[in-house]
Every structure is written in C-alpha cells, then in structure tokens.
C-alpha cells in the first residue's frame, strides 16, 4: 500500500460539494458557448457573411458588467469583515448594475436592428443575437441569484456563518464567471467578423 492509501484524508477534495457542482456546471456552459462560437467560425469560413459594426454601447455595457463584478466582490469582503452596511449596500448596487447591463444590451440590439442588421438579415447577425441573447439569459439567472442573496441579507439576522459564506460564494463565483464569459464573447465577436 502506498502512503496515500494509508491516509484517506489526502484523497478528500476539500472543496464544498455545492461549489464543485457549480464549477461543473461552468464546464457545461463553456461547452454550450464553445459550440456556438465554433459553429460561428465554421459558418464564417464558409462565406456568405455580412460584416457589421459593433455598436459602441456594447463597450459601455461591458464596463457596467465589470464594475458590477467588482461591486459584488466588495460586498462579499464587507460580509466577511462583518461590515453590514457595505455588504447590504453593495449587494443592491450590484443588482442594479446587473439589470443595467441587460438594458444596455437590449439597446445595443435596437441600434443594430435600426441599422438594418435584423435577426434575419444574415447568419452573422443571427449569431450575434443568439449568442448575446443566450448570454443575457445567463445574466438574468445571476440577477435572480443576487435577488435571493438580497432577500437573505435583509430578512436573516446578520451573522457570518460558514454556510452563508459558501452561499454567497456560489452567487459571487457565478457572477464572475458570466462576466468573464461576456468578455470572451465580446472579444470573439470583435476578432472574428
């Protein structure tokens, strides 16, 4: 028997199972968007492809999303350091920024639509709406999770427990993930056009 087998604890993964489950679901979201961007590359290479100018409002929305990630992280640090005001205040700001991101994306779609690049104009536009739309749906899922976190923050007594810290981390890591996912998608849409 090797030494590792003698000490069973060395096999135990220290990560909390719910957090691990979340990371596993990231893998599946990555595969989903990976499939869409691969299909995009294949179709792009096959020709019959209409180029369009990315409306600059998408850069604004990107900034808002990055800011929201920072704000949510500040809220988490506030929670860990038992600063109740920072925790609750920043949580609400993050919620508002999350909604703002979706509104800005919607405006971006309207600008594109007005410029003649509607959903059916060309496969390039269809891909743009599908990819950004599916991403916005994931953002709305995150907003829902933040809403639950807000309800917890304002209804439960303010105690820092391990269980609540893990719960907060689930929301936080998901939010960072969809943030990074958006940066990838935007960079991809700008590079392959």
């Amino acid at each position: 028997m090797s030494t590792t087998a003698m000490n069973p604890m060395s096999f135990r993964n220290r990560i909390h199972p719910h957090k691990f489950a979340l990371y596993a679901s990231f893998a599946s979201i990555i595969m989903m968007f990976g499939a869409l961007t691969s299909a995009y590359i294949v179709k792009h290479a096959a020709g019959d492809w209409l180029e369009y100018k990315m409306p600059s409002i998408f850069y604004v929305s990107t900034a808002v999303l990055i800011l929201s990630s920072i704000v949510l992280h500040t809220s988490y640090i506030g929670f860990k350091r038992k600063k109740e005001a920072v925790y609750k205040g920043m949580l609400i700001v993050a919620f508002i920024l999350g909604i703002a991101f979706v509104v800005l994306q919607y405006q971006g779609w309207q600008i594109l639509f007005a410029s003649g690049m509607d959903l059916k104009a060309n496969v390039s536009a269809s891909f743009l709406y599908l990819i950004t739309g599916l991403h916005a749906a994931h953002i709305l899922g995150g907003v829902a999770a933040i809403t639950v976190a807000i309800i917890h923050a304002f209804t439960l007594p303010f105690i820092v427990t391990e269980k609540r810290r893990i719960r907060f981390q689930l929301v936080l890591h998901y939010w960072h993930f969809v943030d990074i996912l958006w940066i990838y998608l935007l960079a991809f849409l700008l590079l392959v056009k």
Partner: protein
Amino acid sequence: MSDVLTQKQDELDILIEEQGYDDHFHDHHHGDKYQSNFIGHYIFSMDHKIIARQFLITGIFWAIIGAAMSIVFRLQLGFPEADLTWIKPLLGKWIVVENGIGTLSPEFYYALVTMHGTILVFFVLTAGLSGTFSNLLIPLQIGARDMASPFLNMLSYWFFFLAGCVMFYSLFLSTGPFSGGWTGYPPLSALPQASSGSGTGMTLWLISLTLFVVSVLLGGINYITTVLNLRTKGMSMWRMPLPIWAFFVTAVLGLLSFPVLASGFFMLMFDRGLGTSFFLSEIFIEGQALDRVGGSPILFQHLFWFLGHPEVYIIILPAMGIVSEVLSVHARKPIFGYQAMVLSILAIGFLSFIVWAHHMFMSGVNPFLSNFFVVFTLIIAVPSAVKVFNWITTLYGGNIRFNSAMLFAIGFVSMFISGGLTGIFLGNSAIDIQMHDTYFVVAHFHIVMGIAAFFGMFAGVYHWFPRMFSRFMNETLGRIHFWVTLIGAYAIFWPMHYLGIAGVPRRYYSFDTFDAFKHFGPMNQFITIAAIVVFSVQILFVINFFYSIFKGRKMKVKNPYGANTLEWTTPIEAGHGNWPGKIPSVHRWAYDYGKDGKEFVPQIIPMEEGEQAGDAAH
C-alpha cells in the same frame, strides 16, 4: 498515527460536518424530514434509492412503448400485404383501410421509426439505464448518505418526467409526432411545412429533448460531485468499484456533450420560429423557392454528432461497469486487470469526443478530414478489446453461478463482441461508401449499443433487484427471458447484416417496387417473427419484475451474493441515509474474491497484519 491526523482534519472540514461519514446521523435513521408522508416518500422523494426506482419504472414504461412501435413497423416490413385493420382501434387514422385491407400510412411509418429511435436512445438507454443505476449505486457503493444535492437530483427526475409527458403528448397529435429521423436533421426539422410531422410534432420534440438535456445536466453534475466529494473514509478513487468509474465518466461525457446539442437545438428553434437561416440554404418546397439562404445543414450534423457519438458511450459505459461488477461477483474471482479496466473507460471517454464525423462520411465532408476520424474511430477498438479480454479472463477458471444476472452479463460480452466487430467495417470511410444507410448499420448499432446495453441493464436489474425491493426476481422466468432474448436478438439482427451488404437501404417503407430487394421478403418475415417473439418475452420480464416487487422471494440476509461492495452492508430495508449510525469505512479494493483461501472479503474488513493488497498495483 494517521487516525489522529484524520481526526484533527475532520474538525476543520465542513464537508464532514454537513454530510461526511461521522455525521451525527445516529438518532434518526428511520426516515427523515423528507419522508414524513406518502407524497414526500414515494413521489417527490429526495432519496436516491427512490429516485433510482422512479427512473427505472419510467424507463420500463418507455421501453414498452418504443418496442411496441418497432413491432408495428416490423409488421409493415415483414408483411407488407397483411391486413392491419386490427390495430386501427389503437392507431386510428394512421391505418388506412382500402377494399377491406388496412395498411400503415407511410407518414406514420416514419414517425414510428423516429420515435422508436428517440425514445430508446434518450428515454430508455440514457435515463432508464444510467439514471437508474447511477442513482442507486453511486451513494451506496462509495459510502454516502445521498447525492451531493438531493434536491437537484429530484429535479433531474422530474425534468425527465416532464420531457416524457411532452413527447407522449406529441404521439397523439393529428399531424403525428416528428417523423424526420431521431437525428432531427434539417431541413425536415427546420421547416414546419416540410412534412406533416415537422410542424407541431417537431416543436414538441424539441421542447421535450431540451427538458431532457436539463435533466441529464442536473443528474450529471450531481453524480460527478458525489463521486469526487462524498466518498467514505478509505474509499480512494482506485478502490472504487468499476460501475462507479463507468457512471463517473458517463456523467462527464454527458456534461460536456449535451450542452452542444442544446446549442444546436437553440439554432434550430431560431430557424423554425424566427426565420433565421443557420441550417437552411436554397430550399424549394412545392416548386417555391424559400428566401432562406446562407445556412448549412451540415453544421447541424456536426453539432448533433458531437453529442451523438459520446451519447453511444453514455449508453454503453454504464452497462460495461455493471457487467464488470456482476461478472466478478458471480465468477467469485477478482476482476482481471482492474487498472486496465479503469484506464480503458477513460480512454473510451476521451476518444468518444474526437470521432463524431464518422457518422458523416457520406454527408460531403472533406475525405482528407475523414481519414483523421477513421484513425481515431479504429483506435477505440483498442480499449474495447482490452475490456473484452479482461471480462473473458475474469470468467476463465471462475466458480461461475449461472443465475439470470450472470447470464445477461455473459450475453453482454457476446453481443459487444459481435456488434463491435462490425464497427470496424463501418469505421472505414471507404467501406462506408457501400455500407452507409443500409441495414448493416442498423444491425451494427442495434447489437452493440441497443441489445448489449439492454443486456447490461437486465444484468443490473436482476443483480440489484434485492437491493432495490428487498426481494428476488423469479430465476426460472429470468433464464427463459435470457435464452429467448439472446437467440431472438441474433435472429433479428444477424440477417440484417446480409441485407445491408446486399445494399438494402434503411428507413424505407416498402421494398415491393425494387427488383433488387424484393426477394428478401422471406428474410424480412423471419426478422419480424423473431422480433415479435423477443418482444413477448420482454413482457414476461415486465410481469416478473412487477410480480416480484410484491410477491418475490424475500431477501433474508444483508449480503445474499457474498459480494464485497458497500451496498450489501446496509440494512435490508434501508431508509433515507442508507446506514444507521456511522457510515462504514473502507479498507481494501472491491474485488478481494478467493483471496488467501477466503471466498470473499468485503471492503469494510480491515487489512490483516502483513496482508498484501489484492490489487497488486497498489
């Protein structure tokens, strides 16, 4: 000393506090807060053992429907002239009666073929097989109270149930269910006006399978997390029984491949409902050119088969895992080459992602690209052969108990060899020019992933039936079930190889008007008769199954087979939480059979002073 260390780490580890092996479960082992009433216990249950039974019984329901469909279209193929008026009460307007002779309508024939494939592949062999046994065995064999998230696990079943409801409803549409083949290729799937089943039937098919993807993902995330995080003390990865390895890799495959199918489905939904052209280009319907340009139907095939090929391993890997365990237990021998078995499961899992285009050799993909896929496809034969060799070597010199579970496990090996060999033919892109879309393909995949996976499932059901229902199934009926199914399955699919080599195309409604294929009529009749016999003996199995739940011989001892794994250390009627008191710890691998003169040594028995581990590699 290591115990002291372990104790200390326990206190730090919140995992252990919440659901680990020393989890203060002692006082409430008979039922828990979830099982307070009938609905909580049997319907919206979060107990993995109940959820496993739900998956199994739902799977059986779908298997009967799917198989009955195949009987109807086999009647059409075997006896095209026969009068089918007698099934009119069931199929209604799909049986067209002319001059007193009822015939199956061609539209519905295609719908039956499509639904047979969809139901068997997704609802029976994915949900019914991996859903059942992953749920039952993962927590029991690794020593966990339940899944990492019992709630998500429950949702996984109910999403599957919902997917089934939508699909079931689509069977009764006046335009019929989807009829464009289980692969759902555009344009038949992308244009609602393309055929009668392409309208509402296809919409419901898409909704149903999207719900099914959600179910698979929720289940898969849970299985992976449970295997990696909730193993009991001493259960290292290299001591896990082989079914757990198989379910683990299966779940990883599902987690990585089903989202890709979901992407394809989203694009298909856009094409159907919103007028985009991801998969459509230059289409004419009834002489009218559509304004859909710029898309590519091949793109869907890539997305579909990127799921579709791992999917066949999602189906066969759990069967392989189950068979490895059953063979070892009933041969009273350690599984031969445990490590090689694990590595070959991993190798098959990896290779399954880089062979998808062998389903598309004739779709117009670049022949140069095909070479790449031919090579990787043929390499899969290596880990598969390793597994077959190890199964046979496990049997060699064993003290074999020929019970129903063991017979089906041996039958699995036979089927896997027969079906696997024809895979080597089809994996070659040059031979595929002749073989593609013929009955040779039908014979190949039915034997290797249809019948073989069913044999694995039957082996599992017979073997773990006492664990699920605390009773045994009837052995005599089980053996009749096995022999008729084995001989019958070969009788159905062996002749199809000849049909395929002669060029008989699959999916055709009738061969009467083809001079080249007409003379195969008697062979088709023979196949149909064999199919009816095999179908009736499955009904016998279902009767045996439900009869035994209530009236079967009772399980009187915890470990009736003398098996080593942890599921046989639980009480005969185990409640939610599986073990009263502490979870047992594990001291050895799962296959110490016939070691040092002892017939079997369960995993919970500590190693003796100076004892060598049975798994020599460690």
